[in-house]
């Protein structure tokens, strides 16, 4: 099995390096094809491994070589394929294979075609390292690696100012979280003496709660950055400046879920600290609602989907925080499928609309882009959690888990969010595909995407529809290592009421969205009453958080840097040094007149020197001669 492990791991690397060879040359179709094939081979290997694990095989654990070893620290390049990581591997390789193939079409006309595949494959490799590593340090390699590739891919169109800005923002925001992660790793090392998962988990039970809490918090801070949880969420929406396949792969299906993966992976830790878990769950629920609310009014197709991703990540964290790791993981998987599908569909739309993103400028596209319409509708249904699509199985289980754990507030929030999700998803679908063909105003002639792109997307379509089937096998698989409960509400009646109630609520939301937007006819110009209402503005400006960051953090950082340089460094630190030198030089300059060159003055200096010596001599001589008297006087004075 190790062979498959290595293939799964290194095929993307080979793909990346191969494509990298051609980065400086014009587009070469075969780089895309080779890359896709290599990623596909990785998918196949992952599938083989999945089958092996499903068959009840022992987790595959390899230690390739030593990475760092010093003192007591020993970090190998170790990889493990167990139930959790194989799930992630499947998700990653599957979505990436599809995205790769899709990108051959999507990036067709781009100058940086070869470079794109190099970055994309590099990302897959990093993600594989992230999920397959058997220790925190290896995870961190992948963690940073995906950050790097995300930077490269968001800023892929580096001639665009916004794109590069977003890339840097994403990288730096992630770095903030990475610091937390790093501290978490340090804590793990100094308290358990190892960074290997098995060793560390075994040692956790011996540690006191305070330490564990700190570890849990810091690791979660890392997860917050990567998964764009509040308050580090702003980068995700901005990251939509990257090519859409990137958004599909990185900012929907895989990288952003790394945080969830981390929490799931460290489940044994979070089990020991339920308070932190509750915090994670609460934050997740909050983010779910918070992001969904922003998605309600946004006028950027990709951003809406991005907020939706954010919201779904909130769901995952809510589940993971409540200890329902397998549920979180399952939702992660399901979400990957339908969200990637949604993004790729959005990519088709963008392609068709010449990179227009405002859904209000579209409308009626279903006639031109039939398949895309179908796919996006199904993906939205899945997202909304309509039976029998994938989302239903995963999301409802989260609600059940929240209910079963008696966290009714979280349950309520998540339930309400489910309605919002349905609303904004179908607001989007309705605006894009239904109603009047508003794009005609702008003189755009949309067309359907290449066929092979649609074919490439089809596995996702299928999975979005049927992934619910896997719920039980999945549960059975992961329960071996995750502390998994089946969340059964004791009363079947309650369960039924909940299920049906939720479905009805969601369906109502969908209908409302259709009703409101399916026949939309005009492009809003910011004059309507609703657009000027406080709530609308608040939501549209993302609660003014980016504005706050820009005004109060970025600007003040810039100003402070400027002050540090021009004032502190130049005017204080350096000026002190120069000042000392200047004083020495200046003293020389001022006192050089002592050397007046006049002989008489020179002689006077000599005599003055002598007199100086003599006065000292007399003072000292008298003091020495009358030392007894002086001492007695001094002692009389009480000195």
């Amino acid at each position, binding site marked *: 099995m190790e062979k498959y492990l290595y293939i799964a791991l290194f095929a993307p690397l080979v793909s990346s390096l191969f494509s990298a060879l051609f980065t400086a040359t014009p587009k070469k179709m075969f780089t895309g094809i080779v890359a896709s094939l290599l990623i596909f081979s990785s998918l196949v290997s992952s599938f083989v491994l999945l089958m092996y694990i499903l068959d009840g095989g022992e987790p595959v654990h390899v230690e390739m070589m030593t990475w760092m070893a010093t003192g007591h620290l020993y970090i190998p390049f170790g990889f493990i394929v167990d139930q959790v990581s194989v799930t992630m591997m499947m998700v990653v390789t599957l979505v990436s294979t599809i995205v790769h193939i899709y990108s051959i079409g999507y990036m067709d006309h781009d100058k940086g075609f070869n470079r794109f595949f190099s970055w994309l494959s590099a990302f897959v490799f990093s993600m594989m390292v992230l999920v397959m590593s058997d220790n925190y340090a290896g995870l961190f390699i992948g963690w940073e690696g995906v950050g790097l590739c995300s930077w490269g891919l968001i800023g892929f169109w580096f001639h665009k100012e916004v794109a590069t800005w977003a890339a840097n923002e994403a990288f730096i925001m992630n770095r903030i979280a990475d610091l937390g992660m790093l501290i978490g790793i340090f804590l793990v090392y100094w308290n358990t003496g190892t960074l290997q998962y098995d060793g560390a988990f075994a040692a956790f039970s011996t540690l006191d709660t305070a330490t564990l809490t700190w570890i849990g918090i810091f690791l979660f801070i890392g997860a917050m950055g990567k998964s764009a949880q509040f308050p580090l969420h702003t980068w995700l929406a901005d990251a939509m400046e990257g090519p859409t396949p990137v958004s599909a792969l990185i900012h929907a299906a895989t990288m952003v879920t790394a945080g969830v993966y981390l929490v799931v992976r460290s489940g044994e830790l979070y089990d020991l600290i339920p308070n932190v878990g509750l915090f994670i769950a609460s934050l997740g629920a909050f983010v779910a609602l918070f992001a969904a609310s922003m998605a309600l009014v946004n006028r950027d197709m990709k951003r809406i989907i991005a907020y939706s991703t954010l919201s779904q990540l909130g769901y995952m964290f809510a589940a993971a925080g409540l200890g329902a790791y397998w549920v979180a993981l399952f939702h992660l998987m399901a979400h990957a499928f339908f969200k990637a599908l949604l993004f790729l569909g959005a990519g088709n739309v963008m392609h068709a609309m010449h990179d227009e993103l405002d859904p209000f400028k579209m409308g009626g596209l279903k006639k031109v882009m039939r398949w895309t319409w179908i796919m996006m509708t199904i993906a939205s249904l899945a997202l909304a959690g309509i039976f029998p699509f994938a989302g239903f199985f995963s999301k409802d289980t989260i609600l059940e888990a929240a209910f079963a754990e008696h966290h009714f507030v979280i349950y309520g929030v998540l339930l309400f969010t489910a309605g919002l999700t349905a609303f904004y998803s179908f607001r989007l679908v309705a605006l894009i595909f239904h109603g009047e063909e508003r794009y005609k105003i702008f003189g755009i002639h949309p067309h359907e995407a290449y066929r092979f792109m649609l074919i490439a997307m089809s596995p996702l379509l299928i999975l979005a529809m049927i992934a619910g089937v896997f719920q039980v096998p999945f549960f059975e698989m992961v329960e071996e290592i995750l502390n998994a409960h089946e969340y059964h509400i004791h009363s079947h009646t309650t369960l039924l009421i909940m299920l049906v109630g939720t479905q009805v609520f969601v369906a109502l939301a969908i209908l409302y969205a259709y009703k409101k937007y399916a026949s939309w006819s005009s492009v809003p110009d910011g004059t309507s009453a609703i657009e000027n209402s406080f709530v609308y503005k608040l939501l549209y400006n993302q609660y003014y958080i980016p504005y706050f960051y820009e005004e109060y953090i970025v600007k003040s950082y810039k100003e402070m840097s400027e002050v540090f340089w021009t004032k502190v460094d130049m005017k204080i630190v350096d000026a002190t040094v120069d000042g000392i030198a200047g004083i020495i030089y200046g003293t020389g300059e001022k006192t050089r007149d002592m050397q007046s060159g006049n002989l*008489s*003055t020179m002689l*006077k200096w000599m*005599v*003055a020197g*002598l*007199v100086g010596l*003599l*006065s000292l*001599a*007399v003072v000292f*001589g008298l003091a020495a001669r009358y030392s007894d008297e002086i001492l007695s006087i001094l002692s009389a004075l009480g000195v």
Partner: protein
Amino acid sequence: MFEAIAFYLFAFLTITMFFITVTTSQALYALTALAAGMIFISAFFFILGADFLGAVQIIVYTGAVMALYAFGMMFFDTTREVKEKQGNKYIIIGLSTLAAILVVVIFATPMVSENIVALYPAIEGVGNTQEVGLVLFTKYLVPFEVAAIMLLVAMVAGIVLAGKKMDLSITLMNDEDLEKEKNKKVLS
């Protein structure tokens, strides 16, 4: 008693003479006062029994040194009134008075140490000149000879500096000029 009177008298005279020397604006007065002061100093030597020294003082100072200075004065044409720009008088007076007072303060107190042994005691019944000769040509033979070298140096120096050799400066001349001068046989 005689000694005391003589001391104070000559002390007064030397101080006055030297004072005139350093303060007068007439160069000739200064020269004369210096010569007089030196002669009065020789009086101390006689009082103190250093006859030979007194004689040397008169011969060397009044005879040789003063003659040289007189010659110099004529050469420099400083027999008239000397105009000197004076700087800050207070510095001069202050410094020298301070120096004097400081030393006097110490010197006015008698010495307490008593371990002084005369290394070359005066010999009873022997004239001062003889004694001096004895010490000078035994113990101080080497300094005496070095003094001779010193005088030789002074002589050579005086001849070199004041003679014609310094009239033309080779240092300041270019090579061409030097060749010309050489032809004139002025330079060696």
